[in-house]
């Protein structure tokens, strides 16, 4: 179930968007699968229906879902490729922030690169161990 946090910094419609995107990326919502109606989702989350409508409208504009008149909203065909694009975007943002922070601490480029590589190697090793 979608969870939202009213005390959060992030507006409710953004939270709804994010939750739906993550469900698509995890395969919980498959292509052409219907999304809950605005009315039902709004009642379930106890939020204003206009908030849900806004989230759906933006998801549609971004290409993740499509609307069929009178039938509701559905997951778009190419949503998964969009999601991978989205992932790269998020990843880049995280790195940008980290690099900016490191530069503030006067770290040299080589130091940043080394720290990153070490961590990546360690994380990947840990992941493989976890699998076996």
């Amino acid at each position, binding site marked *: 179930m979608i969870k939202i946090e009213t005390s959060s910094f992030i507006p409710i419609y953004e939270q709804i968007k994010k939750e739906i995107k993550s469900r698509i990326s995890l395969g919980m919502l498959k292509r052409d699968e219907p999304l809950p109606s605005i009315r039902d989702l709004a009642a379930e989350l*106890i939020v*204003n*229906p206009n908030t849900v409508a806004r989230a759906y409208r933006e998801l549609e504009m971004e290409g993740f879902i499509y609307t069929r008149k009178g039938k509701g909203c559905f997951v778009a065909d190419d949503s998964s490729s969009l999601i991978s694009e989205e992932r790269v975007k998020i990843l880049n943002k995280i790195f940008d922030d980290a690099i900016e922070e490191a530069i503030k601490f006067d770290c040299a480029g080589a130091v940043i690169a080394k720290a990153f590589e070490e961590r990546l190697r360690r994380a990947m090793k840990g992941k493989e161990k976890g699998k076996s």
Partner: protein
Amino acid sequence: MSEILKIQNLSKSFGKNRILQDFSVSLEKGRVYGLLGKNGEGKTTLIRMIMGVIPPDSGEIFFKGKKITFRDADYKKEIGYIPEESFFYVWMRIVDVLDFNASFYPAWNAKKASEYLERFSLDRKSRVGKLSRGMKLKLGLVVALAAKPELLILDDPTSGIDVPTRQDFLKNIIRELSDAGTTILFSTHLVHELERIIERLGILHHGHLILDENYEKVKNRAKRIRLTFGNTAPAELDIPGILTAKKENERWESVIYPWNEEIEAKIRSISGTRLEIEPLSLEEIFMSFVS
């Protein structure tokens, strides 16, 4: 935008006690307006004037563009009203309450009333006198919604009601909002109810509407800052828009409204300081305005 309710310069006193002063507000059709105020700030007085229960000393109220005069009854057929303490005759059975109310409202929807009774597990034959407070609230909701109102006024209806009943109540309000595009005026001192639902926020304080703004804008414009000074903090903070401020050693903590880039630039230009900026919950925003 189309206005459904417009209030202009409304004032009301009880004896020497001035309750409302020059109160003006306008409600857009199909939107949810949250009116916050502490107990005894005049929320109920305002609503009773809208409902024509008491006359204002001065000022005007317009419903769908038509001026309301005191004791005018016609317009009330289009308004659903759920007061803090729903009033029904204790000797009536639920079915009698529905019949009784149906006679007042031309747009009464008996089918809807039945649906809601079932959803709320209310028995038609129960006597009102035997209902719990939560059940009476649900009955009040059934009556208000079966009347197919264009405007629904909720006057602190959920105070003293347990959380599951409250959530159930709100869910049904939301369904109504989706289906019928009803305009809602939600007056409360329970802030949590409003946070997820409202589109516009009004704060009533000492008889004045001290805030009347799109809620999303309010959330973006209300910020708490913590400004830590390298050595000693100054005795006063010279920043516009301070709602609350307190000093603790070398740090000032303050709530600022309306926050903007100029203010941020101004604060950042104070040398030798570290600035933290935080958003606020509706409850914190409300408390900052009225404390």
